[in-house]
Structures are given as C-alpha cells and as structure tokens.
C-alpha cells in the first residue's frame, strides 16, 4: 500500500497526547475538503503505509513498538486503513 500524493500529515501538539492532522491539496482535495485528525497510533500507521508497508507488516511493527497484542492492533490498523480509503488516500 502507498499514500497517494497530495496528502500532507502534520503534528499539531497543543497537549501531551500527539494530535496529527492530514490535509489534501490538488486532486486529492476532492475527497478530503477539510482535514482528518489522527492520534499517535494513526500517524504511526500513516507513516508505515507511506513507506509502502502492507496491512500485516504495519500491524506487526505496532506490536513491537507499543508492546500490544496483535488482535487489538490489527483491528486498529484495519480501522485506520478504512478511514484512509474513504478519503481516497490509499493506492492499493
């Protein structure tokens, strides 16, 4: 998987919890006119997908990084991927 061009991820940290937002420019903005908010994990998933990782690879990496069980993680990854598909951000 890959993130399509025209999408920009940026950290907006007003508090300790990381808040990230995604905005779209050009063609990409047809599916995302405002912005999308992601938390720390969401942003981590984004960055993995940006590098071309698969859903499974992403989930495994998060397990390593956050020391979490695979079943909860795969669900989170699936959720984020579904959201990104909705805004047309993924090149499958």
């Amino acid at each position, binding site marked *: 998987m890959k993130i399509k061009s025209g999408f*920009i991820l940026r950290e907006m940290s007003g508090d300790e*919890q990381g808040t990230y937002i995604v905005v779209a*420019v050009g063609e990409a903005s047809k599916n995302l006119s405002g*912005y999308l908010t992601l938390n720390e994990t969401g942003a981590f998933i984004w960055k993995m997908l940006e590098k071309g990782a698969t859903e499974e690879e992403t989930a495994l990496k998060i397990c390593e990084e956050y020391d979490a069980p695979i079943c909860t993680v795969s669900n989170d990854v699936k959720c984020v991927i579904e959201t990104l598909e909705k805004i047309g951000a993924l090149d499958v």
Partner: protein
Amino acid sequence: MQGVYSFAKVNFLIEYKYRYTRELFKAYETCGEPSAVITLSDSDYEFEKQKSKAPIEYLENLAILRKIIKVLLNDFSAVLFHGSAVEYRGNGYLFTAPSGTGKSTHARYLKEYLGDVLNYINDDKPIIRVENGTVLVCGSAWNGKHGIGSNICVPLKAVCLLKRGNENKIEPLSNALAIKTLFEQTVSYSSEEEAVKLLNVLSKIVESVNFYTLYCVNDISSAKTSHEGMML
C-alpha cells in the same frame, strides 16, 4: 496612485486606483522600505466584480487583500484570521465565533469594563504572524463594519471561542477543538507548499497560545469572566 503600507510589520508597496482604498489604508502608511509589491491586473478587478455587485471602488481593497494574504503566508508565516482582537497590558487576545455570535459586542464590553488599558487591535480580520518563534497578533486595514482597530503587533496570549450561554463560564478548549477553530477561521491554501506553510503556522499557534471557550450572556458581566478567566 501608490503608497507603502505596513501590515503585520511587512511593508507593501501597493498600487491602486481608487480614493476609497487610500482612505482605508491611511492609518497603515509607512516611510519604510517595501519588501513586497502589490499590483492588480484587469482580471483581478474582473474577479471581484464577479463576486460582488458593489461598486468596484469598494472592491479594490479586497483584490489587494487576496494578494497580501498570499505574500503573508508564503514569505512571512502570517495568516489572516476571522475574529476580534484586543490588547491588554502588552498582550493580545483574540475572540472568534461564527458571524453574529457577538465578537464585536464582547470586545466592546471588555473596553467598557477595563477602560483605557484595553485597546482594540482589529474587529474583524486581524493578522496572526509567527516571527522568530513568537506568535503575534496584528492589526489590519480590514477591521469590520465598526472600523475600529490600530496598527499594532503584540504577542498573542489566548484565543477564545465565544458561545452564547445562560450563564458566564470560561473553560479550556480541547486540542481537537482548537485545531477545528483555527481551520474554520483562517485562510485556505491552493498548493502543497502553501498547505505546509499554513500547517506550520497553525501548529505553532496551537503549541504556544492558550485556547478557551467562553459561554457568555449578552451583557457586560461576560467581560469580567473573560478578564478573570484568561487575561490575568
């Protein structure tokens, strides 16, 4: 006609045709060296005519504003922001809300309540600029129907989202709502470069400015609540 005008400490050499524009910009005239030049083409005037039925002499300043916004964002980490900004003891406070909620009214209550130590910066479209890591709020010539404001730049201490309420109450705004407020009330972007620059400015604002929601009843008692809740 032309003149050099300072907005958010940036000097613009502006060429224009109409006296209305000159009057509007009068308080912002400077002797400084310009660092940007604004000229309008026929198509810029055409664009404004398409957008509004008002006589072109009243629209010229909007065409100029569109160009200034681009320069401010691209070269000076500055954005136009919809709200009413006041200065109190050297710091800036910005009240924002959908039109008609009572930003200007609240600013007026604060003026009545605090008197001479409170100054209006801009009542409609102040400029927020990040300069050397500091977030500043500055006046602009676009200061709303009451035409109140001044050409000053002070550190921005807080942004306050106004809401009507049955009693006066002030509380911190969540990070998510602070971001939402910023996006709703500021300029847009038309390229990736601009989007990145806008995000840089907005993230700096979120990081260094306090955000509040003020629920207020429509009288001067709301000024006491905002003064005590975020200006002390």
